């Protein structure tokens, strides 16, 4: 079982991201489950969504408290929400920011995970460039694919296009591909260094 927790703000598409991630895993023949935290969400308020992937049917339905990966769609949440709560020591973190983990004061987490598993990527900028709107949710799924290898970029793009049609689908897919390339490049250059 691989468990993903997505932290965002109402309007950033955290719920849709978890759903698309589950579709990507499903396309690869895996069992997947996505669900939101349930409540009367408001635009801008902290929102959490979840995705589980497994090779056998998933019977659990509780919120994910010990994630294998955390995606943070908005770095300002770091000061408000315990986004890394329960993260497994061998886990992965994908932050939507142009700043590094060190610049964000995440040295302790960096020491545990290492730079290879704690990755920043400016997904909002990439979404603005490719989609024309500052919505980072689909873009970050490309980064997730590169970071964890749990799903392929191809499956992520197919899931995005299944959810969003026409220019919105293509823009989101392009943003996801760009994010994938950027995270993959970061990891490659660290491996070379």
């Amino acid at each position, binding site marked *: 079982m691989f468990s993903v927790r997505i932290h965002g703000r109402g309007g950033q598409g955290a719920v849709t991201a978890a759903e698309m991630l589950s579709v990507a895993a499903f396309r690869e023949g895996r069992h997947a489950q996505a669900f939101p935290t349930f409540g009367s969400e408001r635009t801008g308020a902290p929102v959490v969504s979840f995705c589980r992937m497994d090779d056998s049917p998933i*019977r659990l339905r509780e919120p994910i408290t010990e994630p294998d990966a955390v995606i943070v769609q908005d770095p300002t949440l770091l000061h408000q929400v315990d986004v890394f709560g329960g993260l497994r020591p061998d886990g992965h973190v994908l932050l939507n920011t142009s700043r590094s983990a060190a610049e964000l004061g995440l040295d302790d987490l960096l020491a545990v995970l290492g730079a290879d598993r704690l990755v920043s990527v400016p997904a909002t900028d990439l979404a603005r460039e490719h989609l024309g709107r500052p919505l980072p949710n689909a873009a970050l799924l490309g980064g997730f694919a590169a970071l964890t290898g749990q799903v392929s970029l191809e499956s992520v793009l197919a899931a995005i296009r299944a959810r969003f049609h026409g220019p919105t689908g293509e823009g989101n897919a392009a943003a996801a591909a760009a994010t994938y390339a950027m995270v993959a490049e970061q990891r490659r250059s660290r491996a070379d260094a």
Partner: protein
Amino acid sequence: MREQIEGSQAVARTVARCRPEVIAAYPISPQTHIVEGLSDLVRTGELDRCEYLMVESEFGALSACIGASAAGARTYTATSSQGLLFMAEALFNASGLGLPIVMTVANRAIGAPINIWNDHSDAMAMRDSGWIQLYAESNQEAADLHVQAFRLAERLSVPVMVCMDGFILTHAFEPVDLPSQEQVDDYLPAFTPQQALDPDDPVTIGAMVGPEAFTEVKYLMHAKQVQALDEIPRLADAFAEQFGRASGGLVRGYRTEDAETVVVGLGSMRGTLEVVIDALRDRGERVGVLGITCFRPWPKDEVREALRNARRVVVVEKAFAVGAGGIVGQNVRLALQGLPVEVYDVVAGLGGRPVTVASIGGLLDDVLAERLDPLRLHFLGLDAGLVERELLRSRGVDRPGPHAEHMLRDLGTVASRPV
């Protein structure tokens, strides 16, 4: 075809394949996605020969369904929580008139205090309204139960509620093998109403019945529900044969054969119970799960048969009778009358509190170690400190004010806490 799909959409598309002719509904969370999905299917023509009525309230919704069903139309609606309570009077009319309406209840707590999250208070409050109540374990079962529900309702001329946990199932994306149109058409015959308002062949439906026959009419209602106890397993068997998967039925046991301790539960918590039971089995404990799919009518004999060799039965339920105790628990005790079995009543998952592997695991550890008093009603994960502080605060004060708001203030903001 197997799809990764939201529970609500899976239900909407499956209901559409049951070819309802009238849908009347009013939106309420967490049910809304279902009727939104259906209204889209009607609008696009994918579901044709169907009248979709957007009414002014839940009372209006079920009243319109009653009229449509009495006119001989296959009729469907869906609701949740306060919406179901707002239908209360019409629920009894639908069942009393013997109208085969099918309704999805996306289970949600009842206020006050207002709470939009999942538990079973809504359906349990209406458990004696004369509707058959089926509880889905997963979105696959939720979809499948609707196909069976129309056939069951129309065969017996009784309304059927399909209960699925609000948000936990309705808003979850998971794989569902959606029944195809051909499969549903093969399984579900065209609706032949047992009674219909027809200007060419006029009858009266809903006449006043006095003391001379009221008891007998009610007796027949009861007899028909009891008849459903034979019909439901037959329909589930026919479904399994045609669709190649088990869905529905009255009760479903998991590793109960030699179990000394059996946990009983309804709805989506069943998967969690199974995970805990597997872990305990690995430790050598003789434990099992009995899932109740059909709560009304109450399958007394089947429950008794499934639990007859158990020493302890732990009933975990998402509702309770205030001032009395467990609801499912009372029914289980009735089924076990005369057997040397200890029954524990445990209330869990109220108002959206997650039922977790940790909380159920801790509960069963307590039961197995005989640390739990079977004579008391237990509230899983109760924050006793919060209750005690509130009681202390309000003690000896002339006007202590509302409890709920004071307890919220005590907890402080929870929005930013980790899940």
